[in-house]
């Protein structure tokens, strides 16, 4: 009958690497480079690149690009620092772009 039940996962669109849990979605209303993006509290099987300062729609942030650890595809970025109080909640969290991830198995 059913396979072993597992958590709902998102995987990299380029290879089948599991990069995030649906349980870790904080918001689906973010804007990435090329369209909509999700904010996750955790991401896995990813590499974090060097830190850079960027002016995003919500102000100045220090971010680091996030890559799939298998195929090295850029999937989004991680918020390292936010310079405005209202944006501090994003620190340590991950943006994964909708176009770069797919629902795995659900």
């Amino acid at each position, binding site marked *: 009958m059913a396979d072993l039940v597992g958590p709902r996962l998102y995987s990299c*669109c380029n290879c*089948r690497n599991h990069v995030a849990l649906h349980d870790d979605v904080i918001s689906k209303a973010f804007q990435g480079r090329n369209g909509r993006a999700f904010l996750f509290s955790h991401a896995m099987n990813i590499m974090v690149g060097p830190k850079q300062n960027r002016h995003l729609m919500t102000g100045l942030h220090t971010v680091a690009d996030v890559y799939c650890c298998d195929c090295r595809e850029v999937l989004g970025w991680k918020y390292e620092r936010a310079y405005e109080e209202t944006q501090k909640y994003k620190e340590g969290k991950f943006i994964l772009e909708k176009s770069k991830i797919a629902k795995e198995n659900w």
Partner: protein
Amino acid sequence: MRGHNWINSCLPDELIVEILRRLDSKPSRDACSLVCKRWLALERLRRTTLRVGATGSSDLFLNLLAGRFSNVRNVYIDERLSISLPVQRGKRGSRSQTSVSSLNQCAFEKNGIEDAEFESSHFSDSGLIALGEGLPKLEKLSLIWCSNVSSAGLISLANKCTYLKSLDLQGCYVGDLGLAAVGKSCKQLEDLNLRFCEGLTDMGLVELAISCAKSLKSLGIAACAKITDISLEAVGLHCKSLEILSLDSEFMHNKGVIAIAQGCPCLRILKLQCINVTDEALKAVGTSCLSLELLALYSFQRFTDKGLRAIGNGCKKLKDLTLSDCYFLSDNGLEAIATGCKELTHLEVNGCHNIGTLGLELIGKSCPRLTELALLYCQRIGNTALHEIGRGCKFLQSLELVDCSSIGDEAICSIAEGCRNLKKLHIRRCYEIGNKGIMAIGENCKSLTDLSLRFCDRVGDEALVAIGECSCLQYLNVSGCHQIGDAGIIAIARGCPELTYLDVSVLQNLGDMAMAELGEGCPNLKEIVLSHCRQITDVGISHLVRNCTLLESCHMVFCPGVTSSAVATVVSGCPNIKKLLVEKWKVSQRTKRRAGSIISYLCADL
């Protein structure tokens, strides 16, 4: 005599049950259930396990289940399971309704209630009561995310099911009264697992520990905020037969773990993920738990080499050690284990960044019985470690390496030459390993059944040609090894007729030729993953499916050359197909009608 039913008139029930018991597949057993009413009843009596989803399991449904399958001993009610019931007889007009909603509609109509909402039939206390009444010989109960269950239901079930041996509660709001009742009534309880049980406090668990003191053998507590050291002290005081303990909680400290270590001398298996537990606890374990066979230490704990030394000194029977994300452990700790625990058979080192080559070298020199070794995210472990493992551990059967960037071909050659009994080799993202190492494996390890080389971009066709000599190979995963093309897979197809699982996803150079050869050479293939293969087309798939009729699972998402025609071919050509993962727009209406339930859609449109 023509037409006379010999089987049913000559064979007694017990013999028919014995014959049905030897059928090894569910479709066969289901087919036998359809032969006649007697066989249906006997097959139902033979069932010992039931797994149902929590949503849609109304009391009526559970009553029915308990009545029909009266010999069931193990029940799993899991909110994450989806319900897929056969079409109900007699309701030919309502093709769009599922059987459960029509069943509930019947129930509601009988009671005069008009609203037949699907959502309102959720597993609850009355369902649990019905289960207890219908299955008094229940031995194992597992309730996972059954949010409508409370103490009342559990008390009633406990009173009826006094033979209960195993209870697993995850994400249920059961309270102390329920757990205490289980303790009072179920004197044979051996196994208790609690996860995310926010309603339970020390009071309930202490009462159960006292009541089931003689029988409790296994205890698991995870993410239960109100269960603290007090419970552990009670367990340590009363449950002298405890053998298995698994803790995942920030609310437990040394006090509790030490109490169990000192109080439960039979402890064999210990798993700890408790950020507030330190070396003191491990020292107590090393002093008192001399029968310990398995120890697993997980993330972010503050254990240092001192703790491991205590284990190495005391737990001489240790067979299985897992060290995961234990940042403070170094080669010295591993040395203590190597010299002290000579019986070690399983070792996993995962993300312990301060453990280097030296510790592993010592393991290789001192633990000759090692059969399984896993090194994950160990950047500092180098080739010499595996040289020693290859020299010393002749019985090694399984080796797993993930993200070990310092390990290269020489190391794999050493393993290949030294560990000829190797059955399983999993390598992922080890960029220094290439053709040379894998060729050595192919030449020396003829018992290899399970090989996985993922994203090792220096491995190419030559390596697979050598692996083609391992005729026992059943499981192969070469996802992301970009240099592999048709030649390599063709070699596998020709040399490994026992292949049942193949994953060639993300390979850009693999085409239809290889698929055709696979169809010819590997008729036992059950699962195949072709996702992200740009060059595979409908032609290749039809060749594959022609002979691989045992196929049960096929993933082919992100394959631009695959169209709805291939989907239809797989569905019609493989009678055993259980799972087909493909893009939604590639499934024609006709295919959807024929095989709707086995097709999973890729959802890239979030």
